[in-house]
């Protein structure tokens, strides 16, 4: 896993983070370019994309789930 540093603005939402990451292009754009196809969890709880990241330790982005 590669490590990347991003400034954490006070009002940054999950959607903002996705926009910043997708703008890096390449694999980021491919994976994160279509926000409608992304789901998020903050500190291992499902959240809507407009959730503020705040002091969270972990943000997870993944495709819609297909279990069950």
């Amino acid at each position: 896993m590669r490590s990347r540093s991003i400034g954490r603005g006070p009002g940054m939402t999950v959607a903002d983070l996705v926009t910043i990451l997708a703008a890096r292009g390449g694999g980021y754009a491919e994976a994160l370019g279509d926000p409608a196809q992304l789901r998020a969890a903050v500190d291992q709880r499902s959240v809507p994309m407009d959730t503020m990241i705040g002091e969270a330790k972990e943000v997870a982005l993944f495709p819609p789930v297909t279990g069950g």
Partner: protein
Amino acid sequence: MKRVAIQAEDFDVGGELAALEALGGGGVASFTGVVRGGDGLVALELEQYPAMTQAQVGRIVDEAMGRWPLLGVSVIHRFGRLEPGARIVFVGTASRHRTAALESCAFLIDWMKSDAPFWKKEHFAGGATQWVAARDEDAVKAQGWDS
């Protein structure tokens, strides 16, 4: 009784049902999901988000136990490589009321499908693989319980 198990191993449906029956409520409902074959499918590979799965499924179970008068809930979800005919998921509910048992069972499997962090990859004869796409109707079904 609240039982949540996320495991690679198979499970014994009869044993799970017996444990729910032993709670004495008189009504037990269950759903078992099994890998469907066809179209050259050799296996399904189920991936999860391990740090989150147990807690997330636990929250879905808590929600069901808050909505219906349930004596017990069991949810088992497997991960790893599963061949056609293999069991994937089990949801069982026990209550004194059949409506509560049946409705909560349907609620649980609908929410497992739309909110538990599992992903299925299909493996076909010849080596091709494909991630299963989420179905909008599954999300709509789960959200239908919100009203």
